């Protein structure tokens, strides 16, 4: 039998020291909803497991005009948190579509980011709010804009010695929504998902974010489509044009859940609906 050391540090300093010691051979365990499946299928074979549940990272608070979300905050917590409901409801919308009650009770927002699936349910909502990720290592902390965090499916700029500590969310203006299509209505990985945020002044768009999930190697911000909206009066024709542009920026693939052809068709409809909803048309 393979030897696996298990550590359950109770302080961040202790945790990052363990990661510095074990490096690539360590796996970070939070809720375990992704990691344990990977362990069971021998997709990863770490020699050390560093459990983060003892670090008290399950919190949401407002600090200096930002929401600060601990990386260990469970999806179930996000779904019932008052601050999230009042100031960042699109994240709660995304949380409601994530897994099953059992999964949501264990899975954490930091885990969803760390797994870095192109289909990660919580990521598009964080991206439309320009969230920053705070990474900690034994050498100190650094802040990475979420836009720069993902580098490929399952790949991020996080080094093996770092852990995701917090997510800082600026309380940007405007209305945001999240939409997701899957093979069924619950407990499902998305075929395509989208989050959009529009800041409107009368009928004119002041600021826009459009993010697609499951449509590229990483969750994708569609900046050309966003640019089409800024400063424009948003009507149905512009929404349709913009949705088509957003999907044109993506690179969907065929997989067991859907074909690229379907993703492009349904994704266009999904973005158009999300835009129309937030623009109130």
């Amino acid at each position, binding site marked *: 039998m393979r030897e696996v050391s298990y550590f359950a540090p109770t302080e961040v300093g202790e945790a990052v020291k363990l990661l510095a010691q074990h490096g690539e051979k360590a796996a970070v365990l939070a809720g375990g909803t992704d990691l344990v499946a990977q362990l069971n299928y021998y997709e990863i074979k770490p020699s050390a497991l560093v459990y983060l549940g003892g670090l008290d990272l399950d919190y949401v608070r407002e600090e200096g005009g930002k929401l600060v979300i601990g990386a260990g905050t469970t999806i179930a917590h996000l779904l019932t948190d008052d601050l999230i409901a009042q100031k960042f409801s699109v994240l709660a919308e995304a949380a409601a579509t994530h897994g099953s009650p059992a999964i949501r009770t264990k899975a954490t927002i930091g885990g969803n980011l760390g797994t870095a699936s192109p289909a990660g349910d919580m990521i598009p909502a964080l991206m439309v709010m320009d969230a920053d990720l705070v990474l900690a290592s034994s050498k100190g902390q650094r802040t990475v804009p979420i836009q720069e965090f993902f580098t490929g499916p399952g790949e991020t700029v996080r080094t093996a010695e770092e852990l995701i500590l917090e997510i800082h969310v600026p309380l940007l203006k405007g209305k945001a929504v999240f939409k997701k*299509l*899957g*093979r*069924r*209505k*619950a*407990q*499902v*990985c998305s*075929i395509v998902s989208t989050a959009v945020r529009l800041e409107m002044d009368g009928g004119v768009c002041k600021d826009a974010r459009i993010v697609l999930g499951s449509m590229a190697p990483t969750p994708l911000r569609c900046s050309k489509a966003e640019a089409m909206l800024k400063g424009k009066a948003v009507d149905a024709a512009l929404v349709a044009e913009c949705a088509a542009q957003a999907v044109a920026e993506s690179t969907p693939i*065929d*997989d*067991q*859940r*859907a*074909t690229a*052809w*379907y993703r492009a*068709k*349904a994704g*266009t*409809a*999904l973005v158009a609906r999300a835009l129309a909803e937030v623009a109130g048309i």
Partner: protein
Amino acid sequence: MKKKGVGMACVLHPTGNKGAGDPSNAAIQLKPDGTLVLLVGAVDLGQGSTTILRQFAADLMEVPIEHVFASNFADDFAPLSLGSFASRVTLIDPHAVENAAEDLKKKIREYASDLLEAHPDDLEYKEGKVFVKGAPDRSMTLAEVGGASMFGGGADPALLVGTGAWQPARFHPHDPETGAMPAVGAISFGACVAEVEVDTETGMVDVTKLTQVWEVGKAVNPLLVRQQINGGLHPGLGTTLTENSYPYYPNPDWAPENFSDYALPTFLDYPEETLWGIEEVPHPAGVKGAKGFSEGSTNGPPPAIMAAIHDAIGIWIDEYPATPEVILRALEAKEASG
């Protein structure tokens, strides 16, 4: 855009086999306290076969159901049943229980004969008692017979077990003159009406309401009949809309490898409104007119939902399941052909 449609389907479902042999056995044992133990081999997978066979035993032995214990805890140790398939248990196994009950009543009369000082033919069994015909005061309860058979008390001890076996009558493979052949034991009849909303931009089909009515001969346990009707909807929905082994056949690359990608419906995928109904026309082949139907409840929803999709978008989808991809491609082909 969401388009609404309604569709219906009728189903004939054969229950039980014939001719090739479709046997079931049962045993009923009298315990010293007068309670009964029913042993059957039909495997209860949650469909309720043990429950209804217990009901039959209580009814045929004319005792409260609380006095009958039924078990199929291990079919290695039980009288055999050909099995829980072909919707056959409700049609076939009650005959074995009925024969076992008759056999037990006969053995009770024979055993009580010495104690009641009367010839077995002059004894009658009714409502948990055995008594001398015309002299109901000279009687023994099941508890008295059971106690005596275990502990003696005037007669030799005995284990009183009624056994029963049954299978449908064999028949000639076919009538050489007409070719006619009674291939199945009984047929149950079902009707299903589905209402759907088809999203023409995403291809998603939402079954908003589903009604299913079944003619079951005799609803031995109406709650179980209802649950079997609604239970059949689950595989019916999955077959029609989501469960796909080879999504892009003939390319096997994306065959699902787990139950995350092989999408069984969840409760959220169920229709918001599910109605059900039971009709009863006693069937001559069944005990008390009962026959099976349950597998048929899976067969109604697929054609009814497909007909509703046709009603909504004017296209007959001729492959299962009608995934969002299949729907969108069909809509595009229709548009292309004008």
